[in-house]
């Protein structure tokens, strides 16, 4: 079976449209981030969360009414779609009190629908800011490491464009999280540690796709005249199109399975990685390589590539 066999797309010719698309994508994400912001999970904002599961179906408003009646303040959401609700409130070191408060309210008012408290998380404010910092540090460090590695393996223009593409991918997903956050019951799209893991996975994978394209360009561009660059870039991308799509395809397949089967705890992560890989595949063709091309065109110096070996 062969898909995308011997294609001949003019990717470089399309690049202005692609830049425009990317800018719109990023801008709408950034505007949403500025206006609507992000939903932070308790990892980053601190607080307590209680996951309650009922034996029988019950409406979220009925559960909320019980909590209101009992005078327990906090927010209640449907969790996943299986008679489970996530109640979140401010941090208290005494999760036991919270548990008995919630449990007592349901025991007294919903006698014929037994419930079980299946999970309690409590994150203090100081640890939440710790977690936030270490998440940021991890992201920054990995971007720098990738920049260095690709810089050593290729050339600084390639590396910079690659890292710009990573930024593009992560910011787009971040924007999507802000835009879509809170819209779906089956995925809360909250920023928590798992989303940071998703970002790092996206960063690693985005550059993977980009490297595949770069590798071919590097192999072919050596000793060529700048006038031929556009043709070489296009040919390289067409030649690698199949593998770019297929490699992303297998990962998308796995992540899709995660999204469907792994439950609500992983769903936000799976969504982030899925979008990230989709955008990452797009950006390695339409952002990373065209950026290198434009840069080379404008600087008008022939490339000095490292590390490539042509047999």
């Amino acid at each position, binding site marked *: 079976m062969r898909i995308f066999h011997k294609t001949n797309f003019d990717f470089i010719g399309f690049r202005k449209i692609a830049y425009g698309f990317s800018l719109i994508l990023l801008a709408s994400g950034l505007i949403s981030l500025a206006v609507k912001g992000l939903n932070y999970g308790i990892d980053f904002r601190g607080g307590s969360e209680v996951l309650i599961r009922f034996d029988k179906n019950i409406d979220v408003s009925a559960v909320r009414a019980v909590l209101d009646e009992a005078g327990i303040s906090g927010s209640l959401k449907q969790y996943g779609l299986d008679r489970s609700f996530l109640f979140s409130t401010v941090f208290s070191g005494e999760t036991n009190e919270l548990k008995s408060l919630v449990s007592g309210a349901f025991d007294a008012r919903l006698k014929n629908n037994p419930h079980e408290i299946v999970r309690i998380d409590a994150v203090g404010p100081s640890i939440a800011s710790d977690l936030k910092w*270490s998440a940021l540090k991890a992201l920054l460090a990995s971007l720098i490491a990738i920049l260095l590695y690709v810089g050593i393996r290729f050339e600084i223009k390639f590396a910079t464009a690659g890292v710009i593409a990573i930024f593009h991918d992560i910011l787009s997903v971040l924007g999507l999280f802000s835009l879509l956050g809170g819209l779906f019951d089956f995925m809360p799209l909250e920023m928590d540690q798992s989303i940071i893991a998703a970002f790092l996975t996206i960063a690693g994978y985005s550059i993977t796709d980009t490297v595949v394209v770069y590798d071919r360009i590097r192999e072919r561009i050596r000793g060529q005249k700048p006038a031929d660059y556009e043709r070489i870039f296009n040919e390289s991308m067409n030649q690698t199109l199949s593998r770019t799509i*297929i490699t992303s395809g297998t990962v998308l397949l796995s992540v899709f399975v995660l999204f469907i*089967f792994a439950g609500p705890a992983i769903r936000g992560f799976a969504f982030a990685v899925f979008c990230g890989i989709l955008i990452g595949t797009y950006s390695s063709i339409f952002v990373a390589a065209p950026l290198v091309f434009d840069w080379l065109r404008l600087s008008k110096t022939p490339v000095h590539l490292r590390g490539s070996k042509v047999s």
Partner: protein
Amino acid sequence: MSSMKNKRFNLLLIALVTLVAVWSLWPTWSDYSLSRQLNSYRSAQDSLKYALSHREELENARKKSLKLGLDLRGGMHLVMEVDQIDLFEQKAWNKDAKFTEIMNSVRAKAAKSDASVLELIVAEFKIENIRLSRYFYDIRNSDREIISKLEKESDDALSRAKEIIRNRIDQYGVAEPVITTQGSRKIIIELPGISDQNRVRNLLKGTAKLEFRLLRDPEVLVRTLDRINTYLVQNGTAPPAAVSDSSASKPLSASLPVPGSPAGAAPAAPATAANQNAAKPLYNVVGVSENGNAYTSEQSKEFVLSLLKRSDIQALLPLDTELLLAAKPDVGPSGEKLYSVYLVKKSPELTGGVITEAKATFGSEGVQPEVTMSMNSEGTSKWARITGANIGKRIAIVLDGAVYSAPVVQSKIPGGNSVINGIESLEEAKDLEIVLKAGALPAPVRIIEERTVGPSLGADYIRAGMLSLSWSFLAVSVFMLLYYKKAGIAADIALVLNILIVLSVLAGFSASLSLPGIAGIVLTIGMAVDANVLIYERIREELDASKGLTSSIELGYDRAFSSILDSHVTTMVAAFLLYTYGIGPIQGFALTLMIGTAASLFTSIVVTKEIFSFLMGKNLLSEKSFG
């Protein structure tokens, strides 16, 4: 590259890796099948019999089998923080008002930032332009010497706290607890399969600082309370009804008919007029009986405690004294809970460090649980001297700032024995025994993060994880077969080996498998075949260029290698940094992703290549084999 010698080495390597992986996962398999066997018996007796006869086998398998993470098996994950401010306060030999002021400001700052407490203290001292040696260690020490001494103190405190907490948990009895320290003040505790979370929480958070302190005379207590009351009137402190909303529901004085005191110093009828309330802000929440004992009610306890913490109130107390509340309430005549208020000397006569043995028992009447303690020789002689010198006086037994009992010394106690009573249940007495035996924590600890997963949710997670694993494996491997035909088989075999390696490395290094870890494996499944895709696509390209089968395969592996290496290294870098900076569950994801990526370099390159050369040798490979 494909000399005979090289080939044999590769084959040996593959065989070795497979063997090690299977060997490392064998206990997991046997644990699983033994548990199934156990559960298959209908009666508990049969299964017990089987368990006894296969005990060694079972234990061995369990010990070496792949551990499941807390989220999958259910349990408690706690992060506790050692209160370094308290620790440093203890180290100061001179605590004047200025010092208290500085430390309070540090406390306020520490709550908001994650800078090290010591840095905050040093910064604060710099602002005030005071040398550390005014309060810490020797006056001749330089700031730097003191900082390094305090640093060491806090490191010691952290490791001591960890050991004491480990002791408590071990004595409580938790299977496979994991206790580690993080940074300069955090202790991470993982407790699988805990059923009574509340008990564990209480067991962990108490400092277990035991002190024997002399009680001041009742007259002094009453005078002191009067002074506080007058002060509160003068300073116009709002009555507690307006301060603490828990007590807002009813006037507290109403719930304070102190035993044996119909009138006297105790408030009589509930004060209705506001000015009457204002006239005795303290006596609204504290009642005094005829014989000079003071009480507060359950509702106003929090308010009284907050009052006692105020430095302006503390300044009103007689020198070297402290007001403390009872740990447990007494029951008043109408069934309400009353907490005694004690005025005790601040400096303890004796501390818990001398306790060598503690035992939970029932008291002389056989109903009241208590904890008997014995002391070392130094403690015994001191205790004899203290009790001998204070016959007829009361000595309070104070644990973590709350008075358990304050018995009157009847006679000199020569044997170094003492008793804590006033305990509600034997269970609580047992927990006290545990914390007393384990010793006092060097400073208070606080729970700053807690994650509890119930066993039913864990079972759900396992099911979800297994479903994701099998579906993703199925989807990806079927895709590879469809798209690459025979070559797909090689990739699929490599994929199986890859998963085996990830699991066996986890089992071999006793790392545990969590839900994010499973997500990491699922992601690995998708990524592991990438290398094969890159190789196969390249081979197809070479075949299209009519390079011939053998050399196409050779070239495909050769030329795809640099992309594969780059992509694997970048994924590894991201995963490694995630592992380094990540905490808890996220590390599980990063770990499996790292192992999976590393393993895929081996499986998708070396293993598939060996399969191809085997197939070539048997003439089973043609140009059509790559789809």
